[in-house]
């Protein structure tokens, strides 16, 4: 930094501080949000680093030397990275297939395909793992019952890849659908008008324009896959160790927090690199410009024959997704999967008996954390986009940092950071709520920022101009206009609070337990029926909750606006 630019930075900061002095409440709000983000996002990460470098109170690389020299950890690291790459490629392929087919062809059953492509988003991330075991496992419906295999090696890389692709392709689908929609069809029309064949229009225009979006989706899927915990724990087995699971086993199996922390730091490296690449390199290359006016869907870019090929492929994937959920449903009502398929409510009696506490705990925590996450997300988006204060960029960065940090790393961080007075939170509901709240605000922030980009800043200026303070403007003008973004932020954080496991598994206790942890332990214990029943219940709760959130927001805010613009 040159002295000149340093001086400029200084004068700008002084200027921004002067602005804050005039609106003390804004200053207090910003300071409070900063303090919370530092405490619940930055501080736990710092603790993970510190513990891994100071396991015995003196600085040492002992743990890293140990782990990086161990062939088993090397293998786990390699497995994680390879699985990340394969999942990213597979997930993007399926995601692009769905996005392209749904935006560029005129095929029947579009709404069914759309539902199939987003259903995995709202279910626990290891539902596919559970279904895969029910279908292809040692006692699997297809492998054992139908095909008659005695031993079928679904555990390991193949099964895990299948599970992860099915779990994460919706993320790629949503990203790429947005890209393809905003590209519109005019460019493809222009290419064909200039003499390009359909195939050339696709390879020379559509695909190159989608590349930044595809790169972005690849990196996001890579991060998700590396961080995934439930699927590899169930399907990986000892033959295919991955790092996220090793972190957990190091802590819970060997009671070695410092070792777990060191492994967590190793796991963090590829995630953070991919995150930085996504954010500072790929995101800048997006061609997409939001014009606000969607161009008419153009359906001439795919030949009729190709259209049916695409339809068939999407349909096959969608039916597979459906099969997974049907399997869970049937499994939940079966007396003993693979042995006795007569219908029973036994599994649900078990769930509502032994598991009742986990159900109420999960609901309490999700219902508490998601409105807070939704509101905080909108507030941060508003502050970052519309107000000037020192550290604005830092605030944005810290608040979305957690996206790059695998849940297991956050779990260890929380145990390390909040296990002694005055910050003794381990074993309480607060630690679970805080975890979900700060882990899932990035999505709310991102959708809030996207929403704000669509709203003319003059509308909020008009409110302040007419005498509304920052907080009144936010409450009376911004928030009602952001209802669609607020809705998706709320739904996302609620769904994740209901379904996430990787960080939460470190934080549950005898007093506060979660359904996802129950599903996992039932699966591990071989009680697949109970696990399936828990899953069915969880998905039902999520669906009901989404409906309720929609209803409540509709009551709270005037929906005339939403109906016409949303």
């Amino acid at each position, binding site marked *: 930094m040159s002295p000149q630019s340093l001086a400029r930075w200084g004068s*700008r900061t002084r200027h921004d501080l002067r602005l804050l002095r005039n609106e003390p409440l804004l200053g207090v709000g910003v300071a409070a949000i900063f303090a919370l983000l530092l405490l619940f996002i930055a501080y736990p990460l710092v603790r993970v680093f510190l513990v891994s470098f100071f396991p015995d109170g003196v600085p040492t690389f002992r743990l890293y030397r140990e782990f990086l020299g161990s062939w088993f950890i090397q293998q786990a690291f390699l497995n994680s990275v390879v699985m990340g790459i394969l999942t990213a490629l597979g997930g993007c392929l399926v995601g692009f297939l769905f996005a392209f087919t749904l935006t560029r062809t005129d095929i029947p059953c579009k709404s069914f395909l759309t539902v199939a492509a987003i259903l995995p988003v709202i279910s626990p991330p290891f539902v596919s793992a559970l279904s895969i075991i029910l279908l292809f496992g040692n006692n699997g419906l297809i492998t054992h019952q139908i095909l008659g295999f005695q031993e079928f090696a679904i555990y390991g890389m193949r099964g895990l890849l299948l599970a992860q692709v099915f779990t994460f392709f919706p993320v790629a689908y949503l990203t790429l659908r947005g890209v393809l929609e905003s590209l519109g069809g005019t460019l493809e029309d222009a290419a064909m008008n200039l003499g390009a064949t359909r195939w050339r229009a696709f390879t020379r225009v559509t695909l190159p324009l989608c590349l930044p979006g595809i790169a972005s989706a690849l990196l996001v899927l890579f991060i998700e896959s590396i961080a995934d915990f439930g699927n590899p724990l169930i399907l990986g087995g000892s033959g295919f160790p991955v790092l996220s699971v090793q972190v957990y086993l190091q802590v819970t199996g060997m009671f070695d927090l410092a070792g777990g922390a060191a492994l967590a730091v190793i796991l963090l490296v590829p995630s953070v690199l991919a995150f930085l690449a996504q954010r500072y390199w790929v995101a800048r290359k997006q061609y997409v410009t939001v014009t606000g006016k969607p161009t008419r869907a153009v359906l001439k870019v795919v030949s009729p024959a190709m259209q049916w090929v695409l339809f068939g492929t999407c349909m096959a994937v969608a039916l597979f997704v459906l099969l997974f959920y049907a399997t869970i449903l049937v499994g939940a009502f079966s007396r003993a999967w693979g042995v006795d398929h007569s219908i029973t409510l036994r599994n649900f009696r078990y769930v509502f008996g032994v598991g009742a506490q986990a159900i109420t705990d999960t609901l309490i925590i999700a219902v508490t954390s998601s409105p807070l996450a939704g509101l905080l997300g909108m507030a941060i988006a508003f502050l970052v986009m519309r107000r000037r204060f020192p550290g604005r960029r830092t605030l944005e960065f810290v608040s979305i940092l957690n996206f790059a940090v695998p849940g297991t790393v956050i779990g260890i961080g929380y145990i390390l950071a909040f296990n002694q007075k005055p910050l003794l939170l381990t074993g309480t509901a607060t630690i679970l709520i805080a975890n979900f709240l700060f882990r899932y605000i990035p999505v709310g922030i991102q959708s809030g920022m996207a929403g704000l980009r669509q709203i003319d800043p003059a509308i909020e*200026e008009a409110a302040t101009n007419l005498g509304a303070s920052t907080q009144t403007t936010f409450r009376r003008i911004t928030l009602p206009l952001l209802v669609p973004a607020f809705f998706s932020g709320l739904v996302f954080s609620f769904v994740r609070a209901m379904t996430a496991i990787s960080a939460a598994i470190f934080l549950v206790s005898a007093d506060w337990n979660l359904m996802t942890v129950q599903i996992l332990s039932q699966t591990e214990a071989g009680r697949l029926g109970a696990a399936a029943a828990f899953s069915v219940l969880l998905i039902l709760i999520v669906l009901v909750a989404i409906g309720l959130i929609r209803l409540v927001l509709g009551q709270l805010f005037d929906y005339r606006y939403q109906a016409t613009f949303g």
Partner: protein
Amino acid sequence: MSVILESITKTFDDPHRAGGRVTAVDGVSLEVHEGELVTLLGPSGCGKTTALRMIAGFEMPTAGRILIDGTDVSTLPPHARNTAMVFQSYAIFPHLTVAQNVAFGLEMRGLGKAEIASRVGAVLELVELAGLQHRSPEQLSGGQQQRVALARAIVTEPRVLLFDEPLSNLDAKLREQMRSEVRRLQRRLNITSVYVTHDQAEAMALSDRIVVMESGRVQQVAEPFEIYAHPTNRFVADFIGRVNFLEGRVVDATGGTAGVDVRGHRLEVPLRDATIRPGEPVTLVVRPETIRLAPAATAGSAAFRGAIRRAVYLGATVEYELDWEGTTILAVNGSPLEHGVLAEGAITAFDFPPATAHLLPATAIRTA
């Protein structure tokens, strides 16, 4: 209520520019008197909107002070200034009805329900929107949205009313109609107003005084007549209306008149600038509509001769481009139905009443 700008300056960071800084407003001083409507006029990027936004409090001056009614408001946040703005995009709250939009500012001031209702009703009457109070904004036409924006601003009885190119989104006919409407309301309510526009006709029609700005600086502050008749520099002369610049030299100066030599023709031109002395080069500002063509041009000493290069018939007027010894002269003649249209290629005499010309020192490119 008066508004005083004391040499306000605003610089922004601009990463795309060498040096990284751009000065949007550069030492602007101005006093807007009670009940006056002053227009900030200039090309885009001249700093007029930034100046307006500083009065509203959306931007803070890098240097200088802003006083409203004698109190320094430079550091007050926008919501504490009581300066209502009418936005270019109207900025109607899309989730509120017409009445709720108008009531917003009154609610912020903590007025009672009954008073809000009566004041909203009255102002909607005033802007001729009575009966539409329960409409939502998307059900309104552009002109009606404009009226809502206006009603929402004036209902709060602000100390200063600010207009940010409020009519630029309307079509030409509606724009003229709203122009007189705005003026009527502003006069009737006697609200001190600052109005930003790049449309000179709008500025001429509306303003008590016009501030012509360029590159962040004030070029001239004067009443509309003065701005057009007696611009202080070439920029103002060129920006307001259309203009011919003729180069000449002062021969002698007596009283209020200068004898100016223009290519061998002697013209007696009013002299307003005392700094212009005999022997100095000057620029004559000659408006196209003052130029008379033969046969109207007198065959006297001041008659020039030129060839008609182009004649554009516009119905009410004809625009001629004359070639006068290598210099292009623009002439606008009225009532072609009466005078006919001269043919392209014809040679014609032309002149202008010297009393309508305005003298600029030849150095007065602009006061930059």
